[in-house]
């Protein structure tokens, strides 16, 4: 059996240590070793985006990242969004604009939208659609997801210091 590796990374701001086989995928480490079941598995081929997490300031699909690649990294998952129990603006936006139905894509969508707004705080509708295209939703038809991102962009820019 392949040698296991000790990996240390920051998960939602807290340091975690895991010992994993080299082939273990980040999504499985998060869900099965670290009880972070917010990110979901939808395809295992990087197409659907349900497993999207933020890794060192980039959106990644955690079904195609090896946990051993994450040593020293900072990982943000949906569980890291409601800091101190208060909803983040994006979480509020998704419920206000009815941007979810079954909820399966939602953690990935919110995590991806977070990175989008970090990099482009005032996106056009076309830009939102393009930047969110790596995350599939089968329920909403995206229209209200786009509105949710617009809602969050507006609210966040109003909150930002001038």
């Amino acid at each position, binding site marked *: *059996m392949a040698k296991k590796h000790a990996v240390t990374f920051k998960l939602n701001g807290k340091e975690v240590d895991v010992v994993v*086989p080299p*082939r*273990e995928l980040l999504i*499985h480490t998060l*869900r*099965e070793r670290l009880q*972070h*079941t*917010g*990110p*979901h*598995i*939808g*395809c*295992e*081929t990087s*197409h*659907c985006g*349900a497993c999207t997490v933020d890794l060192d300031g980039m959106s990644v699909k955690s079904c195609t990242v090896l946990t051993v690649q994450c040593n020293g990294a900072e990982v943000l*998952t*949906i*569980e890291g*969004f*409601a800091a101190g129990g208060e*909803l983040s603006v994006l*979480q509020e936006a*998704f*419920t*206000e604009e*009815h941007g*979810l*139905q*079954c*909820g*399966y*894509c*939602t*953690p990935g969508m*919110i995590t991806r939208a977070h990175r989008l707004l970090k990099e482009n705080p005032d996106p056009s509708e076309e830009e*939102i*659609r*393009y930047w*969110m*295209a*790596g*995350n*599939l*939703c*089968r*329920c*909403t*038809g*995206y*229209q*209200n*997801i*786009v509105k949710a991102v617009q809602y969050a962009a507006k609210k966040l820019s109003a909150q930002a210091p001038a």
Partner: protein
Amino acid sequence: MPEDKLEREEKLQGMGVSRKRKEDARFIRGQGSYVDDIKLPGMLFGAIVRSPYAHARIRSIDKTKALQVPGVVAVLTADDLKPVKLHWMPTLGGDVQAVLADKKVCFQLQEVAFVIASDRYAAADGADAVEVDYEELPAIVDPKKSMDQDAPIIREDIADKDNVGHGPRTHPNHIFTWDAGDRAGTDAVFASAAVTVREEILNPRVHPCPLETCGCVASFDKVRGQLTVYLTSQAPHLVRTVVAMLSGIPESKIRIIGGDIGGGFGNKVPVYPGYVAAIVASIVTGVPIKWIESRIDNISTTGFARDYHGVGELAADEDGRIKALRFTALADHGAFNSHVSATKLPAGLFSICTGSYAVPKAYCRVDAVYTNKAPGGVAYRCSLRVTEAVYLIERMIDVLAQKLNIDKAEIRRRNFVKAEQFPYTTSLGWTLDSGNYHAALEKVLAAVDYDGLRKEQAEKRARGELMGIGISTFTEIVGAGPNKVCDILGIALFDSCDIRVNPTGSAIARLGTMSQGQGHATTYAQIIATELGLPSEEIQIEEGDTDKAPYGAGTWGSRSTPVAGAAAARAARKIKEKARKIAAHLLEVGEGDLEWDIDRFRVKGNPTEAKTMKDIAMAAHTSSIPDGMEKGLDATEYYDPPNMTFPFGAYVCVVDIDRYSGETKVRRFYALDDCGTRINPMIIEGQIHGGLTEAFAVAMGQAMPFDENGNHLGNSLMDYFLPTAVETPKWETDFTVTPCPHHPIGAKGVAESPHVGGIPCFTNAIVDAFAHLGVTHMDMPHTSFRVWKQCKALGIHQR
């Protein structure tokens, strides 16, 4: 309305309000509880060994190497399941299906063995190490060749049976022939008609592909003899009954828990071999077993839809008034008939194919055959075979319009059932409950400036550009269903609601349905809030746990609002009747002296004398109730709907096609839906956006291709089309309200209308773009390549 009434009404957050969803709080935090989130102590993982061949005999299975893989605990095959008689299972279509292949495989990726291991990696390694020796057999892929004289026999297990539940069979690969209507009368009208049209129309094999695949965690407690299964099911109670029939475990000791479901769209109605294998594995090992389908397994083996090879024919007079309809379909059911269908309706509700039109004579027939493809036959975001039926009629009326050179809106006006004709019984026997088709169409035509669009199209055609305008004026049939005609495995398709009002005036309601994103926890509470005058915020909704909820047939076929929603309203009314008696007693007046006022009974003529429902709830649990009255304020309703509901809509789609690349741009899609009384407009709109997007997916890109040996040629998300935010069009929605006369609150289903009505609208738009060039039909999916091939065939593809 006076201010205090408005305030009280507002406080209820009842019917008609765009109440925010109660489900969202957990989903936006990543705290949903989907099946793969379930982790039980000692749990092992199952992985399935699948056949590489579409048709082959199994010579032998060697487990030796697999059992040596670290972490592998056991490998189960059909031979291991035989002693407990669980190697075959009944299907929802009246057939049987192999749980694990018994001597031969009949479709590619069929379940052959089940490997149990300590974790999912070890299980996958174990599955890879199982050695199966196959003898390949010729496969049947084209359903048109299934009943050839020399066709290989797919199902040797039933080769000598002259009936598999739905009438006589004429060939070993024949499943059933079902028909409806007046064949001779229809033929006679065709023989003397002024005009007839005929078109071959395919609904290709597609897959609902919810974002969460199927899976389960089965946990058998040997000491208590109890089986608990967390399972992705749209119909948990039906699953419990099937498991009881299969396993012999008393149904009272089986608990099915739906939890949160990551989308269903029909995929999660049937019982699949993986579930049964996991249950058997848990019974054998005595520990919980998790089985989660991969995406490729999902698309390849569970829950395909459609594969209806149709022929549409209409007979009409010279003015385009339809005189007769003759629709037939050859249905490719795959290797086992596991089509979800009511026992008496093997081709489902296909006979709704007369659509929104007054068709004096009609005949329809479906011939179902076996092929070497996966079983399934689910209704992908529609009621049983309704998309197939509606697609045929909405396409054929366009074909007729083109033949007679009549405008496609005008031909619909001429044939619609008129508002004053409802309830209207069609020539195939359905009684359409209510409708106002002309008004819906005119509203949409005005909204999109239809005349202006036709003018623009004429100008573009003159310049050699391709622009298409599609119309779809569909009638859906949802809410299965009247128990006289609708049952599955003998169980009538009623649904249920059990409401308990607590002393302090909050309530819990449990229903036999199962939300998969539809927002039931929000909308059912709104129905009950309005009926009972209690705030929806204080009404808890539960469903999907068979130990808690009353028996019901689940959520599919847009049946939740028509059936369980009706049960909720009627259970609430039973409570209200009792509350009226208590109020009369408390106010010392006769029941007839009381009138209902939003949240209270008040004395007529003396409105300050009143008892709110909250007052009454408390009183019902004290001794201040009439002598002899039972305590409590609870009621249960099992509802057998008197009829289906018939939502309808009028859609217009405008497309621009680049004739050099075949690329289609959906410029505009305007959807007007009428689902009767509207419970939560926000949720309705969300359902319509989603249904239209799934219609777009089917029309523009989804299909499951096979090669001549039955190999899948596109079963991952690399190949199978799921639209992203980029290609999905923007949707414009609108509505009219024509209440359902037989439903307690006048509501009809809605979630499937946009899918059923949307698909023909897209095809009609695309064909319309080529109509002036003599094109009458193009089969889906309308990918750029296929549209370009049409341009090439017409010689318009080059500059």
